[in-house]
């Protein structure tokens, strides 16, 4: 069998996206069959994600059991959104008895924007920090979708100033895209340093998700749904030691 029918979704950004398509491995062709994305600030995705997935499948007349693979955006991004997507993927994949393939939400952001060349995909990580990774976005006839998003750095969580310093070292100035752009803009306010090219983007779009899915399929290793996990890039605030209790626990010597 040389085709793979793939469902992909991501809920880690303010825009929740679903994409459905077919890869023809023999011919090296990718065809997106359906897609939808909704700006919902991630928080409401849980109420409609599965219904929307079923509607997307129905619109393309694809049965759930016709799926070969489920691709899931695993973050980094909003913790709750990433977990909603991952838990949904686990349930679907377990019920359909299909593998899952994790997809970096930042790669999907990089594929969701129109610029070519060097870009930095960012998401607002709050506390003055960003989730960020560098990519080269190139038209590439050899790639199944005619475009290739080549990763140039690992997903990371970084302070705006540190990201700017890192970018300043690069030979070619990249475009910064994503929801982290306003964090960069705030960090640059009043400073004398040259402003990099900034392109706000509200998250992952369906077409970009499909694009990133094609790239992830070519490079990735699929997993059993029990192995799939969200990518947080930082510990929970409890583990980080934020807000320690004022009254420390004193164990009783007699217990």
């Amino acid at each position, binding site marked *: 069998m040389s085709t793979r029918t793939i469902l992909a979704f991501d809920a880690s950004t303010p825009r929740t996206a679903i994409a459905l398509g077919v890869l023809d491995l023999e011919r090296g062709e990718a065809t997106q069959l359906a897609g939808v994305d909704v700006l919902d600030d991630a928080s409401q995705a849980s109420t409609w*994600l*599965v219904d929307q997935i079923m509607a997307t499948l129905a619109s393309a007349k694809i049965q759930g059991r016709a799926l070969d693979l489920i691709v899931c955006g695993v973050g980094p991004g909003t913790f*709750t959104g990433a*977990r909603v997507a991952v838990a949904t993927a686990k349930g679907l994949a377990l019920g359909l008895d299909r593998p899952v393939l994790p997809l970096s939400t930042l790669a999907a952001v990089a594929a969701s924007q129109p610029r070519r060349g060097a870009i930095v995909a960012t998401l607002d990580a709050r506390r003055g920090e960003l989730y960020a990774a560098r990519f080269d976005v190139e038209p590439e006839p050899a790639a199944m979708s005619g475009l290739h998003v080549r990763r140039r750095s690992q997903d990371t969580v970084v302070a705006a100033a540190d990201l700017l310093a890192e970018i300043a070292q690069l030979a070619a100035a990249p475009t910064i895209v994503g929801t982290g752009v306003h964090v960069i803009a705030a960090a640059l306010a009043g400073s004398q340093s040259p402003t990099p090219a900034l392109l706000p983007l509200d998250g992952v779009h369906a077409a970009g998700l499909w694009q990133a899915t094609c790239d992830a399929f070519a490079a990735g290793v699929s997993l*059993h749904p029990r192995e799939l996990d969200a990518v947080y890039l930082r510990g929970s605030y409890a583990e980080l030691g934020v807000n320690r209790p004022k009254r420390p626990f004193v164990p*009783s010597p007699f*217990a």
Partner: protein
Amino acid sequence: MSEVPLLLRETSGEGRATDRGPRILAIESSCDETAAAVVEGGWVRSSVVASQVSVHAAFGGIVPELASRHHLGAIVPVIEEALAQAGCGALSGFDAIAVTEGPGLVGALLIGVQAARGLAAATGLPLFGVHHMEGHVFSAMLGDDALAARELEPHLALLVSGGHTELCEVTRVGRYRLIGATRDDAVGEAFDKVAKMIGLPYPGGPAIDALAAEGDPRALSFPRSMLGDPTSLEFSFSGLKTAVLVHLETRGAPRSRQELADLCASFQAAVVDVLVAKARRARARLGLGRVHVVGGVSANRGLRAAMAAAAEEDGFVFCAPPLRYCGDNAAMIGGAAAARIVAGAAPSVFVHTSKAIDDPRVLLP
């Protein structure tokens, strides 16, 4: 791409094994236990609970963000284990999926709910959201290889856990009426907070219960809140918590194991006296023949002993689930869902933090 073994392979010839009732895969993730179970009606074929107690003990209590992370890692292995222990190779032959929809930590609830939604969509099975406390009501009805399942009879339920202290009139499935509740702290919360004050590890309830068995419940006099008004069915444990604090401030921390045990016994006696007195009062007022104590605190030995003595004296039937179904588990969610299905409830899921058991969304016509 690597090939993944087909774990949920369909097994031929496996149909409905019994006529005990709807066969349900149930999932629970409302707090710090990730649980899955397979039930047929009120009969438990498997019940698997992955506890996070050791994860949260380091922080002296449940950290919601951490709980969500651990639920996500545990949800699939727990479901697979529940199916395997039930001898089910796949979700064929099942009638429904059930999941706790609230109350609870929404970030935690969503892990179970989304996994259940995915499973339901993939299999075409109907999905039933179950109120967590309705699950606890049904924990006292469950049967398994070692225990006969019970039919639900009208009773007074004393729901006692970390987040709840409620008296509920249970007429039948979907017919619940709250007749008393705490004004402030839940009883399990009082146990946890007092345990922390006196240096006992989280979770505090079992630690206090164990020490109380060594101590003298009359050693210290703590207040029995809300007992004065004979009409009141409300509870209050905040004043008791403050009384323990004032005791520690004026007398200092216990200086020996005996003093610690006496403090635990005296505190537990104050809690148990109030719980039992209000339950007796409510039962007599409603004219019910049964009192069920359910929820995590129903594992407390002092409470069980006192309720059994009260039942003997007043002539009512006292019932508490076996210890394996006292704490949060998915079998009780499945048991409640099975009863709702038999009663004709429609499948629906509504995730919520704090709806009460007598909310219109829980009640059945």
